């Protein structure tokens, strides 16, 4: 009977251990997407992702029909300006926190322009924006990042394998540049 009680206590404690480790795992994971992309993507620059092959894929579950580029961002110095030309087919921009939470994504049609232009900043930086500036530029697309660092994934679909060079070419013109507030 006494051992049964110890067992019950152990199982309850195990439940707590389970919940705590699940919550801590994203912080502790050493091979998450951000860590895997660090060797190939310098901070605040757009870096092309090598197309996935059976021998090598930077991340698991990459869509081989897409050309992709990634911007590993750090907003601690300044907000970021993102410019992505769209392809004839389909282009999307996805934003992830340092831990890989997809907090925002937009595609070419939703953006409704030939070049997707976005500004990425923390909520503190957004609060620093002059009030009148927000009014004068109503069509500025401002995204608030919940984390100071994170990832921007830019993808362009190659509808057939022969379209892959075109898709990759479109992405070479994509840019992500720090832009201090008040510089433009």
């Amino acid at each position, binding site marked *: 009977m006494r051992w049964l009680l110890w067992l019950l206590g152990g199982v309850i404690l195990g439940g707590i251990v389970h919940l705590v480790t*699940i919550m801590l*795992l994203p912080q502790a994971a050493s091979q998450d997407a951000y860590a895997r992309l660090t060797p190939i993507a310098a901070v605040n620059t757009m870096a092309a992702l090598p197309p996935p092959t*059976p021998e090598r*894929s930077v991340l*698991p579950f990459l*869509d081989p029909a897409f050309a992709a580029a990634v911007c590993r961002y750090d907003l601690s110095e300044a907000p970021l300006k993102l410019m992505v030309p769209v392809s004839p087919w*389909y282009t999307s921009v996805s934003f992830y926190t340092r831990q890989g939470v997809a907090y925002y*994504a937009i595609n070419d049609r*939703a953006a409704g322009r030939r070049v997707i232009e976005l500004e990425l900043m923390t909520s503190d930086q957004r609060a620093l924006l002059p009030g009148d500036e927000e009014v004068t530029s109503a069509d500025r697309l401002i995204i608030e990042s919940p984390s100071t660092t994170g990832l921007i994934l830019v993808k362009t679909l190659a509808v057939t394998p022969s379209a892959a060079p075109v898709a990759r070419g479109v992405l070479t013109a994509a840019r992500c540049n720090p832009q201090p507030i008040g510089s433009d």
Partner: protein
Amino acid sequence: MRLLLGIIFALAVAAVVGLGTTWLTSRTGSASGAVRIGAWTAWPKSGTSEIDPYARATVARSGTLPIGSGDGVLFIANVDDAGQPLDGRCEVTVSGTTPPARYWTLTLYDPQGFLIANAANRYGFTSQEVVRDGSSAFRIAVAPRARPGNWLPSGGATRYVLVLRLYDTPVGVGVQSGREMAMPSITNRVCP
């Protein structure tokens, strides 16, 4: 002495139960928030800030970047419609129609999410590439050896998964409300 033994026993049980369940759930993904349609499973919330802690742990551990909900929806299948595991030595037919989307892609991966080598260097189909029989329906043969029509090589792998991604699709909302949609069927035809 018995107290000490009891504490050690309880702590050992806690470690095994706690870490074991964490290891299992972060490996296999959790059932919470999953939407199942036929053999296909989607986690629509995984592409949003409302991703649950279990999916977050799975994402961090596997190193994937989940598809953002403003981008599309991902469905994965590791069994056929009859519940049999997908085996690359068999011939499987994926046929029917997909929910509405501007584009879709169907890709074959190993269970860890890496492409499987094959002589044809083909790893999937896009909605523009697939040959249709006059209607909107399509038929793709997943097989180790070449097949007429749309052939997706399985590379002879013992286990693989199929991933259907819908891009620029209105189904995200439909999936979240659990409404039934027409997904392609996966039928296991010939196994040697």
